[in-house]
């Protein structure tokens, strides 16, 4: 590792920080632009204009936008996302458990989909053009083209209604053993992993085939190196950059899938909380959730870029 690499990584982190500032402004602007506010929600339709105005004033909602933005920014910088306007409970407390649940779901999905995509992508590369390869790529293309909510509905129909192997709703409070964990998480994970694996293994296959066209792969074949060793020892180290990028991009697209899947399975995660809070105009909660999603996305893409840069450097392809 050298100074040039450090500079590149710093540059990339700087760009991410810039994106983060942009994201913060965007989140505030969008939530401020939502029609109606929490005062309407709390007091209902029968409230008098005077009562809502008084509540608004009490909550500080009548302050100018820039002042509210300043307050929000100030509190975020002190790691205090404020209190829910709806219930008065601290946002951190509301989100805490939900965040844990969502991370659990995302982690379980990644643990299934990353090895599965690597295996599928590498197997297709090794048998490029064979019947196996054609079948798998066609099937994966099919899965990619199906929207996640349909995948989720089909999963419910097949596993919960037809075969009754898993519950249709993910009741996370019922988890007391590994077996129960598998039963509860089976369907949300299968749905999410299906979508991400399809995308990821297609990208991994494309990266690997690109690497496989290099003359030094032919050289390895002519040296009599076993095929598995060619893939793992010769091809993979050269494909780490693009492969990690493919994985990170797919995992970040998982964030979008989470919203749908949590809703379909009534899973108590971040996405569900965010959807409810948008409906109630509980702005501090919405802002905090949006920020967490955006930071997660930025983190994944930045990580992918840094790994890509570092791996090309080490590989020495200038």
């Amino acid at each position, binding site marked *: 590792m050298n100074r040039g690499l450090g500079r590149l990584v710093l540059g990339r982190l700087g760009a991410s920080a810039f994106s983060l500032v942009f994201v913060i402004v965007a989140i505030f602007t969008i939530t401020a632009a939502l029609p109606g506010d929490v005062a309407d929600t709390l007091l209902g339709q029968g409230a008098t204009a005077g009562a809502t105005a008084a509540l608004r004033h009490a909550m500080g909602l009548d302050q100018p936008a820039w002042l509210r933005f300043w307050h929000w920014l100030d509190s975020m910088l002190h790691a205090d996302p404020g209190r829910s306007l709806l219930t008065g409970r601290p946002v951190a407390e509301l989100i805490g458990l939900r965040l844990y649940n969502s991370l659990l779901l995302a982690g379980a999905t990644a643990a299934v989909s990353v090895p599965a995509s690597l295996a599928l992508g590498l197997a297709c590369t090794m048998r490029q053009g064979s019947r196996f390869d054609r079948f798998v790529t066609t099937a994966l293309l099919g899965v990619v083209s199906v929207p996640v909510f349909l995948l989720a509905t089909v999963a419910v129909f097949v596993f919960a209604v037809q075969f009754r192997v898993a519950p249709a709703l993910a009741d996370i409070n019922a988890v007391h053993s590994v077996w129960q964990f598998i039963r509860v998480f089976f369907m949300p994970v299968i749905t999410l992993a299906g979508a991400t694996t399809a995308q990821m293994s297609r990208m991994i296959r494309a990266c690997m085939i690109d690497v496989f066209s290099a003359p*030094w792969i032919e*050289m390895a074949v*002519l*040296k*009599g*190196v076993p095929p598995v060793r060619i893939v793992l020892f010769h091809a993979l180290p050269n494909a780490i950059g693009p492969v990690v990028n493919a994985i990170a991009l797919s995992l970040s697209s998982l964030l979008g899938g989470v919203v749908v899947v949590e809703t379909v399975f009534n899973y108590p995660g971040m996405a569900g909380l965010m959807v409810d809070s948008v409906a109630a105009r509980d702005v501090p909660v919405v802002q905090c959730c949006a920020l967490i999603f955006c930071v997660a996305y930025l983190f994944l893409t930045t990580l992918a870029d840094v790994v890509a840069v570092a791996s090309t450097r080490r*590989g*020495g*392809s200038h």
Partner: protein
Amino acid sequence: MTALISVRGLHVAGRRRDGSEVGIVRDVSLEVQRGEMLALIGESGSGKTTIALSLMGYVRPGCRISGGEIEVAGYRVDQMTPDPLRNFRGKTISYVAQNAGSAFNPALTLHRQVIEPALSHWVLPRRDAERRAVDLFRAMALPHPETIGARYPHQLSGGQLQRLMAAMALITEPEVVVFDEPTTALDVTTQIEVLEAFRAVLAERGITGVYVTHDLAVVAQVADRAVVLRNGAVCESGPTSEVLERPHAPYARELVEASRLPVRAMAAAGPVPEPVLTLSDMVVGYGSVDARGLPARRILDGINLSVPRGRILGIIGESGCGKSTLVRTIAGLQASAAGTIRFRGEDLAGAVARRTPDQRRRLQIVAQNADLVLNPAWTVGAILMRVLRFFHGLRGAEARAEALRLLDLVRLPQSVFERRPPELSGGQKQRVNFARALAARPDLVLCDEITAALDPVVAAAILELLADLQATLGLSCIFITHDLHALRAVCDRVAVLLGGHVVEQCDAASLMDGVHHPYSRLLVSSVPEMRPGWLDEVTRQRQVATDAPPPPVAAGGCPFVSRCAMRIEDICDHVPPPVVPGAGGARIACHHPLADLPPLLQADGAA
């Protein structure tokens, strides 16, 4: 004695896009005895690499062995199943690829790759394999044999990688080694070192080999027998001397002819015409800039050159000497840090954007790779007519007539007008490339390695065309090349470029004999000759060469100091050499008095 390699009636078929099959190799039979080296000669597309690879039971994707028998060291290669085949490759037969730069895995150290065949085939335990690798590195005359394996491919030069690749091929002590154009991508001075290293090791170990090449002079040095291929079929075969000296088949004769290019006649004596282009004290570089505005790392350093009107100036040098940068600087594509360009008596701006349209029209460039400059979606006619309209405002029938005249000038049939570049052969594309430059009616044409990507027979025709155009149109040219034969065939005058410096300028005709800069001498004597035994003579003469560690080149020193056998310590490495006028208007940059420089004998350079 039975043959170690025997191929009978080999057919290899390739699949086209539409699914139909086409014969790439047709009914080829050949034999190689134990300890013998067979050369497969042919141009690109002749099937020589396909045959060499089929000996290893390997065909490139989309191809298949469609008939015939291949027997190597007792194995019926065409009938082997994948597992025995994998065990056979790398152990019984091994391969040295054309471009070692891309045949080594960039992400792995060389050591791991070199000993991999021995480990994959359980020939040697790791420790012994490592020891044998170091022995082979030493035998291949590689620097630092103990530690060179710890490096990555991009840290070594092309010539070193090629020798490492040969070491990798020999690590399992195979019975047969296939060499696929192993020196084609190298400079002549490097090629000689690699050839010598190969030959010493092969002779010592009694290796049987197949050597794929298009260079007949190399064949004469390395091969016992030769097979000439054309369009996938054998057109001539026999002992090397027989094939090279008394070829029977018309194509083989053509090939031998093409390697003996005629030397251009000297320009008429008399006063040298006015220069059309003059470069003065040109510096191009990058990195931090000193007080005088000169960059720390120089690609070109103090270049002084001029091209007389109606003459062809050749610029020769190894890869990395700054040839292409020179072309780009003259063309205005590369900014210079210092120096001036005078073109037709007026100063020429450094950047092409600041030149007048007329200046741009008068200075045209013909690039090395026609594929990269000709738009594949346009017809040849459209390509030419666009230039005519752009520079001369010609349209319609007028432009069409002029375009057809240009095609005629570069000796292409009029039918080419309607065709697109991908439908043309390499030689035809290069002619269109030429016609495109001529369409502007330039005063000076920059030719950047225009024959480097072409087969010898085609290249010879392009050189002939250039010489004729020069004679009929009075064209002025700068001809960049690394090929001494091409240089002598078309150029009036030569500048020898090394490390961004012009070390010598002289008449092209006098380059092969008389007194020259030690580098020019090395360059000239490194060009392989078609007679067997040449390599022995040259390597014997160079026994005195430069094993001592080269001194670091300080700024201002002679660029050749690290390789020069006659360097003067404490002078050559930091004092800029004076430019000394020599016989016949030559200008040589050397610290030695010219009388002390050993002259080239005619025999050294007679190709």
